[in-house]
């Protein structure tokens, strides 16, 4: 069975290609991309009509909440939301209940994913047992069970000795190590960015130093161990000079940010809006600008969603009691497209950060239109404007400050191996 995607703008960052042309798929595999593919046999034709045709996005920062918090999200709904967001591979964070700190939990997640998932799921395991920051987990057995990386996401490994041990031990197994940079001594009890809004709302502030100090320590350890560290969800301009320094010193590291950190400011928490409560917190205009420039300069190479579903039980309550986090799988693409619209990135540069670089961090081959690759294709209308309604959100939880707001850019169709999903029906 052959599928011909005709007359699309084909953007494949893995091959540095961006041109108008056709894409041919046979039996779930890429057969070729050409300016013009003439075919005379029977074939299913998808008219792209100049829409963008891309390999699927890779999101390395997702919370699927299974096992243990299935009222917020599960592998089926989370991956369905991913599909609708154009994310065809994702890595899920280990702060489940129980946390993914054992091969049994890793296997359970993969087992459930094989039955229920719409897209590829790569489990990330904990760095330390029960995320307590004390004893490192069984990196070898975890990797063998299918863990793709390790992270204590949600918590930073506060003890530098334990972190150094983990970074060294991870070298034995080529396990990527992902760090949630937050010095808890500075952020404990904090609710939102420290500044005018924490003063106004009477909420304890989270200073940027909590993130900056953690980033710097991790970079120093990366230098000392020569083990790359991936710095998750960077939010503040204060870390940028240290990233520059690390590049100059050839320290192995990669850095990530999320769309909310280059789109929203602390202003969103006005009137105690718990939908904008996220960790690290939304910061200032200056921080937003600095993050965008860091993306442009290549200091930050990865954009991830930090999709963090919470139900009204965790969000429609007093601000200090509400959980941190917002969903993001379906806003990742439309918000990232703003970086092209505002002139910070070319389409190829943007999709490198959404497809190729996150794959590199995980040590996998990126989705690509190279001949023989399995078909992971998304067709995107970058100009479509729509309101993000609850109905459109496929996640079980609807906690996003973009709810009922206008977005621009939408995934219209997905071709995943031999299946075609038409997503424009809602």
């Amino acid at each position, binding site marked *: 069975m052959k599928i011909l995607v005709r007359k699309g703008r084909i953007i494949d960052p893995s091959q540095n290609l961006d041109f108008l042309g056709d894409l041919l798929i046979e039996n779930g595999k890429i057969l070729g991309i050409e300016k013009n593919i003439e075919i005379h046999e029977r074939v299913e034709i998808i008219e792209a009509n100049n829409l963008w045709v891309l390999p699927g996005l890779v999101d390395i920062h997702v919370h699927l909440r299974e096992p243990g918090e299935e009222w917020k999200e599960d592998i089926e709904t989370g991956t369905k939301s991913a599909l609708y967001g154009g994310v065809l591979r994702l890595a899920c964070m280990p702060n489940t209940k129980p946390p993914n700190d054992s091969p049994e939990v890793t296997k359970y997640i993969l087992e459930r994913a094989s039955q229920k998932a719409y897209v590829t799921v790569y489990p990330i395991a904990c760095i330390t047992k029960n995320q307590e920051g004390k004893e490192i987990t069984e990196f070898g057995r975890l990797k063998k069970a299918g863990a793709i990386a390790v992270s204590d996401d949600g918590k930073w490994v506060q003890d530098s000795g334990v972190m150094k041990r983990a970074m060294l031990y991870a070298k034995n197994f080529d396990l990527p190590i992902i760090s949630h940079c937050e010095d808890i001594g500075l952020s404990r009890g904090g609710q939102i960015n*420290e*500044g*005018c809004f924490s*003063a106004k709302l*009477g*909420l304890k502030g989270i200073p940027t130093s909590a993130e900056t100090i953690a980033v710097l320590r991790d970079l120093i350890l990366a230098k000392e161990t020569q083990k790359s560290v991936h710095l998750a969800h960077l939010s503040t301009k204060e870390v940028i000079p240290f990233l520059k320094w690390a590049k100059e010193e050839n320290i192995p590291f990669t850095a990530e940010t999320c769309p909310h950190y280059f789109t929203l400011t602390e202003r969103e928490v006005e009137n*105690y809006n718990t939908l904008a409560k996220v960790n690290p917190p939304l910061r200032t205009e200056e921080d937003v600008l600095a993050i965008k420039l860091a993306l442009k300069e290549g200091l930050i190479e990865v954009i991830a969603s930090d999709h963090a579903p919470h139900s009204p039980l965790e969000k429609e*309550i007093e*601000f200090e009691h509400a959980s941190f986090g917002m969903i993001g799988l379906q806003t990742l693409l439309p918000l990232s497209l703003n970086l092209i619209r505002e002139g910070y990135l070319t389409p190829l540069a943007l999709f490198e950060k959404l497809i190729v670089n996150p794959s590199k961090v995980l040590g996998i081959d990126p989705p690509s239109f190279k001949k023989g690759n399995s078909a992971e294709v998304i067709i995107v209308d970058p100009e479509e404007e729509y309101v993000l309604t609850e109905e459109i959100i496929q996640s079980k939880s609807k906690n996003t400050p973009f709810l009922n707001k206008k977005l621009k850019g939408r995934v219209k169709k997905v071709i995943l191996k031999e299946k075609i999903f038409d997503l424009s029906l809602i």
Partner: protein
Amino acid sequence: MDLKTKHLLDIASLSKEEIEDFLNLAENLKEILYRPIPKVPTLRGKLIINLFYEPSTRTRFSFEKAAKTLSADSLTFTGKGTSIEKGETLLDTIKNLEAIGADLFIIRHPVAGAPHFVAKYSKVPIVNAGDGTHEHPTQALLDLLTVKEKLGTLSDLKVAIIGDIKHSRVAHSDILAFQKMGSTVWVSGPAHLLPDIKEENYFKLSEKSFKICYKIEDAIKDADIIIALRIQRERHGEALIPSFLEYHEFFGLKPKHLELMKEKTILMHPGPINWGVELAYEMEKYPFQVILDQVENGVAIRMAILLRFLTGEKGYEDFS
């Protein structure tokens, strides 16, 4: 009702004119408290529910006294003996008490923004009686009323607030309230308990009307009003000051400060007082301390608030 807001949530959202309206009405109503029978029927049939999720003496009893003076029914609800102990959420509690017939809620809560959160869902007015480390607007109003009574004006005064500014909701409300009325506010105390550099801009309503200083003497010097704050042990959760002895020595108000003060500087404290910590016990005898006047004015200001929100009246027509 020409109040812009339906609720009294914080000083930040009140205009100078709205504050003046409350003060004028309170001045008007205060006389009732001195009558042989201090009770008028104005709010007969209205049900006021006091939701106190945190301990309180002055605020709670003065709200109850204000309600009783105006003949409203008031019910007081604390954590003990209610479904809070069964884990009922704040929102469910409010919805149920609305169904029972509440006409107004007074809320004290340990977390910032709890009254604002409830106000998004409530059909009846919400009055903030102190929310976490955010604001305590009725305290600021009664402080203004006391100063107005004693000094005859609220503008061009120097107000010194000494102590744990960062965790004090009273300080947060007073800082805004006195500046809105045209005065200057100086704050001092241990530097880590003062607003951070990034937070300062929020409190500074105009270039010269707010000042942070690290020597309490600078704040006290030539002040018209000194407000001493309680060291809030329950809010810190960790040791933020080395000892009470040290605090008293460097940040407590003592007779030796009298020489820096004006002849008739007013001394205030929102209570409860830790004598020997923020105030030397000798200061109780200081002739211009007005701590109990503040408490009395608390009743008058809360009568004004109840009347305002339950009838929309700016003035008071005597029914007796």
